[in-house]
């Protein structure tokens, strides 16, 4: 059984072919797996190993280093709230706190605290599936998330790819 569907399998082989060494394709394939499936499963890692001529242990070894790769199922919306120093002094932690409570029992929304998002000019900042939103407040952040949930805003995948 292939984890990747036909279209993604073709894409995966194209990605591997870009690199002088197949192992380099582990991260891009992990993103592709998340685009397809919403998280990075064991099955996905096994097929990535096959495609990159490595072992599932190699793939896990690499992938477990990176925070964007979700090795457990997560919400359809990943909300990343920055609390690094610029956001810290203009209300980032309050946004995080509000969202963590608001979505504590809503499995489709995963709220995470993250490091500087390179959006400090618009602090406090957050991302929803890696789309930026700047100068947010606790209430405007919630409105933004609700707009994605209702489909008013179209979300990227949990790895940040645009959805056609």
């Amino acid at each position: 059984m292939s984890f990747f569907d036909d279209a993604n399998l073709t894409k995966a082989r194209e990605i591997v072919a870009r690199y002088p060494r197949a192992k380099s394709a582990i991260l891009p394939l992990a993103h592709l797996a998340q685009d397809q499936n919403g998280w990075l499963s064991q099955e996905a890692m096994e097929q990535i190993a096959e495609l990159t001529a490595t072992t599932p242990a190699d793939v896990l070894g690499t992938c477990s280093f990176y925070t964007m790769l979700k090795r457990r199922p997560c919400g359809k919306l990943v909300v990343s709230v920055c609390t690094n120093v610029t956001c810290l002094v203009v209300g980032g932690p309050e946004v995080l706190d509000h969202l963590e409570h608001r979505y504590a029992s809503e499995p489709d929304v995963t709220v995470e605290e993250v490091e500087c998002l390179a959006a400090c000019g618009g602090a406090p900042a957050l991302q929803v599936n890696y789309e930026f939103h700047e100068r947010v407040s606790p209430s405007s952040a919630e409105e933004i998330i609700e707009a994605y949930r209702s489909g008013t805003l179209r979300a990227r995948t949990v790895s940040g790819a645009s959805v056609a």
Partner: protein
Amino acid sequence: MPDLTPNGATGGTSGGTGVEETRIVTRRLHDRVDDSWTLDGSLASGGYEVLRAVLAKGDAADVQEQVKLSGLRGRGGAGFPTAQKWSFLPPNSFPRYLVVNADEGEPSTFKDRMLLELDPHQLIEGITIASYAVQCNLAFVYVRGEFALGHERLTRAIDDARGKGFLGKNILGSGFDCEIVVHRGAGAYICGEETALLESLEGERGMPRIRPPFPAIEGLYAKPTVVNNVETLSTVPHIMQMGGEEYAKLGVNRSTGTRIFSVSGHVNKPGNYEVELGMSFRDLLYGLAGGIREDRKIKFFIPGGASSQWLTGSDEHLDAPLDMDFVQQTFGVMLGSGAVMVFDETVDPVLVAWRLAKFFAHESCGKCTPCREGTGWVEKVLYRMSQGLGRPQDLDLLVSVGSNISPGLVNAPFVQTTICPLGPSAVSCVASIDKFFRDEVLTRLSNDAGVHA
């Protein structure tokens, strides 16, 4: 006083309210806000003309020479002379690679994201010219994983450029081939360190390598490799257009040209400002970034990203020039990644130090003991101090732990017991609160101890 006479030329420092940016690398994205990132927008404003001229001239050595004359130094953090870095590639050793560092994760730095999102063609032109100069046919751009839009626009721009013959085989009929592969990271600050970046690009965990060998000798796939920052390479077409000597007239001393400063925190107009080097911090923060909110005073500011030691709102510090060597030699701080974080008098420096320490503890790759263990200890001690639970000896304890990572706690250049500069960066905040706020912190610690006795 430092010599503030600019190397010469235009725009730049006029002091008071007449302070202006000198827009070179950021010109297109300001002039064409609706389409600066598209092929049409680029072509309509001179995009790829320099590449065409360089290839028509057909003199790779001249590109190296102009970059050398320009005095260009890396914009990623270390400020290493770009032409010199290129010259370290061993002759006649192929293949060789150019790797572009677009991992921008240094807290409060947001210039490379802007360049990726708003002017990807300028970067592509710079990569192609630099590749031609160093005779590389395959370049990689390592884009920070979180930059979804930047990744999308760069990928699209590469396809569009290839469609016009600016990339691929036999570029513009010159016989020169160059391809660019975009590689997305997946969330790890340490992958911005150049050897960790190469590991990550090879499909490994992003852990820095022990040097030597340096990347120029054994880099990506153990082949000779140049790693350059996005802003560095985005500047190259302009150097070729102006001529190296002309470019070097901008700036001050060995800090030539312009740099983009990301100004954030308690200023009225946070944002990216491209200025001629040599401008004072005061002109940058008050003249361009609008001064401090509610006319408060600056308690301290961090001049070069989270890794740098701090400066205060004193006249001595505010009047210092944006000169990489001057600030290093005079104050032991760095211009680093070009980020300036400003904190007004309402801010608790211990809280900021704790949050920075937490960042570094989280991002330590764990390869070497002083950093892996030390960053965690520093974070814990600063946390209790920030929560009013400090002990009188805590500040000295921090300095002692810090000295095991970075003996003497000197910044820029770091002294380190670790493989990479992340470890010493983590204790820049410790050195800074000890240097500027020691009395305040000690008083507070003894009060805390009284309360909890």
